[in-house]
Every structure is written in structure tokens, then in C-alpha cells.
């Protein structure tokens, strides 16, 4: 994700290429799971598991998707408000990020890179000042399943918006 998401202003637009290949692959999975949590009739969880298996293969992909689900479940449990996310099935919104998505992917990236202070700050921003044990545990478990030093992805620049979905 971003090298320093904590220093990233929520009114700035991220530069092109700032999203690494792992975060880019995680983004649709995160969105489908959020859609499944907040809009159960979407059955987005099936798309999430399927997308993960396509990226990382069946064995690793399903385990990673399960890790993402546990991580997001911990985040949602700790938050007083829903997470804002973009529609995973809307092609026009594919390259657009919400602030919450920036924080979620930034947190996983910080944990992958062992940037403890940055991760702690992002968790507090996501949860409104708490550092829940379950969230830390599930985040670290997921980070351990992912590549630590992925390549930068070659994709269109992402646009940050103030969209809020519930």
C-alpha cells in the first residue's frame, strides 16, 4: 500500500503506483467481504473467496481470504460506524479508494513491513482510539500469510474520494 499512510493527508490524492501488488490484489477481496457484511443479500463472500483463489491459487488464496475475513470482522466489531467502501462490482469505481480502504490496506501493509508505530496509529484511526487484541492478532496472522516485499503494481492511478457507503 502506501509507504507512510499515517502521514498521508486525507484530502490528498495518492500518486500513481503507490499501491503495491499485494494491496492491489487485496482491494477487491476486501470490498467483496465488506459488501457481504454490510449488504448480506449480495453474497459478496463468494466473490471474495473466488477472487482470492484466482490470485493466489486455491490453497493459499482461500487461506488468505479467510484471514481477510477474520481481520475485517475484527475491524467491524471494534468500529462504532460502518466502513466506507466502493462497490466492488462497479467498474467505474475500481480505481477509486475511500479513506477507510486506505486505512485498511495501509494497516495490513504496515504489519507486513513490521512498522509497529504506523500500524498502531492506523488501528486507532480505524477504531476511534482503541487497539483491540483480536484486531492485532488477526492482522498479524494475515500479514504473515502475505508477501513482505511485493513489487509495485503497474496500474492506473487510484483516486481518493470522500464517498461513504453503509
Amino acid at each position, binding site marked *: 500500500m502506501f509507504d507512510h499512510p499515517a502521514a498521508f493527508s486525507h484530502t490528498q490524492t495518492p500518486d500513481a503506483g503507490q499501491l503495491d501488488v499485494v494491496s492491489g490484489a487485496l482491494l477487491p477481496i476486501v470490498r467483496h467481504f465488506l459488501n457481504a457484511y454490510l449488504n448480506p443479500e449480495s*453474497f459478496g*463472500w463468494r466473490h471474495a473467496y473466488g477472487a482470492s483463489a484466482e490470485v493466489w491459487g*486455491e490453497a493459499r488464496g*482461500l*487461506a488468505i481470504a*479467510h484471514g481477510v475475513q477474520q481481520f475485517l470482522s475484527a475491524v467491524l466489531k471494534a468500529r462504532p460506524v460502518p466502513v466506507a467502501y466502493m462497490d466492488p462490482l462497479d467498474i467505474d469505481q475500481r480505481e477509486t479508494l475511500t479513506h477507510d480502504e486506505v486505512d485498511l490496506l495501509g494497516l495490513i501493509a504496515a504489519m507486513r513491513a513490521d512498522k509497529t508505530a504506523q500500524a498502531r496509529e492506523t488501528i486507532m484511526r480505524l477504531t476511534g482510539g482503541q487497539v483491540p487484541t483480536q484486531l492485532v492478532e488477526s492482522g498479524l496472522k494475515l500479514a504473515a500469510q502475505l508477501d513482505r516485499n511485493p513489487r509495485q503494481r503497474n496500474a492506473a492511478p487510484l483516486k481518493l474520494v470522500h464517498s461513504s457507503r453503509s
Partner: protein
Amino acid sequence: MTYHAPYEQCYRTPLPKEIFRKDADFDEIESQLLTVMRLYFQAFAAPESHAWIGAMDWAEAQFGPTQGPIIAARVLAALMGVRRTRQSVFRFSSPTCPDCAAIVTEHERRFMAAVCAVRRGQVGAAQTELMMLCEGNDTGRTIDALKALRAVLPNVVQPQDQNAHV
């Protein structure tokens, strides 16, 4: 469909063509698969229950962090095969109601009979059960999914008295 809120008891008794779970000839693996299957059906019948999380968690707890999600995904693929071809309602027992969970419905019994038959290499018997379950429609996709499921399941342990004697 018999859906009940978690921990609610209903004191249900078996209907005609239903059997008690303890009387079904399931081994430990097949019994766990039945629970995973029921959680998926609950997720489809009552999306707000988020029972798909329970299905994945249950499979992970029973089969481990790597095999669990794979087995859960392959159970889902087999169920989707049935959902695509069966026209009528699939009647299942709620996994979260102790009284209901102790009863195997006719449709569950047929599906599990197919699972057990494929595990034991009796594909013809599985096709017969699935043909009944899918009301004469195509069972090829479900059979393929069950074969894929068999490939990741532990082998059937034959009881001593069923071993061949020379």
C-alpha cells in the same frame, strides 16, 4: 427450510423420511461436512445470519488452517451444483438449533449419501441419489465437485470386520 435463531430449541421430532443423525452411518469427517453444509444453507436462506463465516470457521477448526478453507470451498461448489439443478426447496435442519441439528432431513440424507458414496468410490450410487435430489436434472457438475471434494478429504477408515479375509 427450518431456520431457527441461535440457541433456540424447538423440540422437533423427525418427519417421515427423516432420520436421527445418530442413526445415520456418517463417520466423523462426514458429520463435520454435514455441519458445514448446513451453515452454508443457512447463509443462503437467511443471509443476515452471516452463517458462511461459521461454515469457514467450522471447517478451519475441524480440518486445519490450510485444508479447512479448501474443504469448505469444495463443499460449497457441490452445493452450488445442487442449487443450480434442483427446482424445489432444499429442506435442511438448522445447525444452530440442537433439536433440529439432531435430525437429518430427506434432502440432506440424499446429499450426504452421495458424499459418502463418492468417498468410497461408488460413483454410480452417488449419481442415483443426486438424480433423485436434483429431480432428474443434470448431476454432472455436482458429481465433479464431489470428486474434487473427495480428493482433499482424509481416506475412509474401514471397520475391522469389513476387511477382506484371505
